């Protein structure tokens, strides 16, 4: 699997994502600058966590207007896989590659801690190695991860099996509607999630529950 990590000004999990990708695939990821209007030939594009453009105005708003996002959209339109983690998820909603919006945490504070997630959907390139209903622990680290969409949208994405990860009952860190932590687009090739799978691939760092996501991708895309 060949992968690329997009680097926006003030992305800050770009190196973490690249490290995890290299560890899992054995191949270095391409680092792509936000002003580039073309992507290298890759199977997976990762939009990493961080504070693109300072997260000023709204998280992900300015990144959605960058040159590279036109290329990312084209990649997604062709069926290429896109994984948006944390700020990357925010960028995807702002770009309307995913529905809904990520609002300020209901508790109004930044929150960084491991959370329990339920894998709700395994019919995807990102989660096929997990089992349905499996509980995993990923850390979250965000101030604006409160997923919002109108009821009609929520019903639709639930009905279409596009809610991939949910916060386990009682462990919703941000007030997200219906405990939603991660969703797919209609074509199921774009995933956005607030928790950080790339921070749980190394046993020394508090778990390996994120590995199966990368293994799923490798199996699907290689």
């Amino acid at each position, binding site marked *: 699997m060949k992968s690329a990590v997009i680097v926006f*000004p*003030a*992305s*800050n*999990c770009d*190196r*973490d994502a690249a*490290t*995890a990708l290299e560890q899992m695939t054995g191949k270095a990821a391409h680092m792509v600058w936000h002003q580039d209007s073309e992507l290298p030939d890759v199977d997976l594009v990762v939009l990493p*966590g*961080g*504070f693109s*453009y*300072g*997260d*000023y105005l709204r998280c992900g708003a300015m990144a959605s207007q960058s040159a590279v996002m036109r290329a990312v959209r084209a990649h997604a339109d062709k069926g290429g896989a896109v994984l948006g983690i944390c700020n990357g998820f925010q960028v995807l909603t702002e770009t309307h590659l995913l529905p809904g919006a990520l609002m300020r945490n209901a*508790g*109004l*504070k*930044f*929150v*960084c*801690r491991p959370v329990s997630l339920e894998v709700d959907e395994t019919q995807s390139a990102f989660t096929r190695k997990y089992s349905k209903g499996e509980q995993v622990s990923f*850390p979250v*680290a965000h*101030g604006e991860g409160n997923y919002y969409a109108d009821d009609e949208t929520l019903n639709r994405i639930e009905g279409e099996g596009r809610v991939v990860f949910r916060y386990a009952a009682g462990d919703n860190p941000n007030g997200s509607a219906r405990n939603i932590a991660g969703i797919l687009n209609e074509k199921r090739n774009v995933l956005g999630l607030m928790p*950080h799978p*790339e*921070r749980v691939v*190394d046993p*020394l*760092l*508090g778990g390996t529950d994120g590995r199966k996501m990368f293994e799923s991708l490798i199996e699907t895309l290689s």
Partner: protein
Amino acid sequence: MTAITPALVKEHGLSEDEYARILQLMNREPTLVELGIFSVMWSEHCSYKSTRVHLAKLPTKASWVIQGPGENAGVIDIGDGDACIFKMESHNHPSFIEPYQGAATGVGGIMRDVFTMGARPIAMMNALRFGEPSHPKTRHLVSGVVSGIGGYGNCMGVPTVGGEVNFHKSYNGNILVNAMCVGLAKANKIFLSAAKGAGNPVVYVGSKTGRDGIHGATMASAEFDDASEEKRPTVQVGDPFTEKLLLEACLELMATDAIIAIQDMGAAGLTSSSAEMGDKGGSGIELDLDKVPQREANMTAYEMMLSESQERMLAVLKPGREAEAERIFRKWELDFAVIGITTDTKRLVVKHKGRMEADMPITALSDEAPKYSRPYAEQPVAVGFENAPSLPKRDILKSLKQIMGSPDMCSRRWVWEQYDTSVMADTVQHPGGDAAVVRVHGTKKGLAITTDVTPRYCLANPFEGAKQAVAEAWRNITAVGARPLAVTDNLNYGNPQKPEIMAQIVRSIDGIGEACRALDFPVIGGNCSLYNETNGEGILPTPAIGGVGLMQDVARMATVAFRRVGDAVLLIGDTRGHLGQSIYLREIEGREEGAAPPVHLPSEKRNGDFVRKLIEGGRVTTVHDVSDGGLLVALAEMALAGDVGVDVGVAGTTVETVPFFFGEDQARYVVAASAEEIDKIEGELRTANIVHAIIGKTIASKVVRVEREGEIALSELRAAHEGWFPRFMSEELPLTN
């Protein structure tokens, strides 16, 4: 030209004597700009005029020290060509006035100190002291400071991995916000601030200059009174986004060989950065302020020289390399301008709009800056409650619960969950343990980091209290299995012009020096924050110690958590039952009294070296030092961290139950391992002549059980321990942006 009146001199915080000295050094009346430059460079903040003679007594050398005090940050060798760069600094006054922005810009400032030397910041710490919880401002200050630290550090993508939080009424009018940054660089790629050579371009990079915090450095050197809040000097607003770009751009430029010297613009901005670079390089600097990128219209030379706008750096490049550097900064969408040139005159020359605004010898700002041996009057040290004093009989498990749920001893989870602790994917020990541990990226090595000081000990006995701060930092690093390597300090006190405060400063520095020498733990940097007084009420003397240590294999790291049922629990070190200045005495008996616990440095070293060897040898992975609150608190923390119960007794000592379990005797560790392993360790302890006792074992029942006293459920302890902070803060509206 503005006439320099005595009132104007006074407004600049300069004494009559100091002004007389200026006239002598200049040989003429200074211009207003020159007066402003003197005022900031001769302020306590920049010149360390009250502390310099004493700081010179600190040990600063060791074979692994690459750079001691004097640069933006200290540097140590951590092997394999890697260097660790770190420093701690205060942002006390601004944080009191505007907690969010004050704390945020404090974080930004200390990060610049570290990356200006060529390091990528890899971890942040924060040592915080607030007024008593019942004070009407405390909640708001806690909320603002914590979100400010998080707001800046999280955006920078540097994990904030630990710190301290204390509450005490002495900080009601003067909170302390001390931030520490640790970075990594290649040992042969360290950047210094010496602007050597003449004819080299001086370049300005980063944000534009505005009228921010003019006279901030002098503010940090003045006492507050009730009017200060009304006067409210401008506080700077931090821009972590720009700082992140500045970090990446600087590291990119540093990968080339275009830089001769580089220095961040901290307090006193353009003035101190240019004066210090010229001073260190033995050169002169000529600045053309027309070239300075400006955020506001019609800025004067005075304003530009004294502006404390954030996120700016000054560098001296090799001639001809300007275009290459400019390309990098433009790529990161930052301002870049050549604003001057180095000379061989050893003078600082400032021109603006065709006028000569300043022309002064740089040594007048550095070597010739005042240095005072202020008079000091040592106070008698507090005594009492030393060797197992008798106190009223009380239910010790109830006392334990009360202590675990008290403001100073409860969990700081509410704080650290607002910090990104795991970004950069190298945090192997998160907040909650003795020291944080971050891996050296791409290796098995780890850096252990801690900040410590127990201000109430320092008030009772400044010398022993300062020794204790160093010893505790050393112990916390040891307890995770790392070898303590070096220290940065942050000395926070009241008004040094009061002889009793000056005595605290002098004796603390003596204590730090003695402990650092005995523990081979040199001081490689630091910061002084004086005049922390409001209406004549000073803070507790607070010499915060930031320590860094190195471990070779993070897989062997120890944590405080009990790991299994059936392990034996061993106490290493001597328990005499010292209750003076203890948490028990304060929280349970309501008495802030007694002697500070004495620190016996040879025992610290011997016991600590022993424990570290156990960890390095892979023989134990559960270790906790005994500090605030004493033994029973340490045991409870270990049980809670592992969610494993423990059953303990007094193990045949002659010390009474309360002093045994709550005394704060130093040089102690609790270790847990299998009974066979502990047996072997006991034999070795006997041979080494180290006082120790097996005090109990871990058990299946989730309780803390004390022989003859009963037991308390972990769930009950946890509720008390985790409960206080969120409950206290639930009344505060989080700051908004």
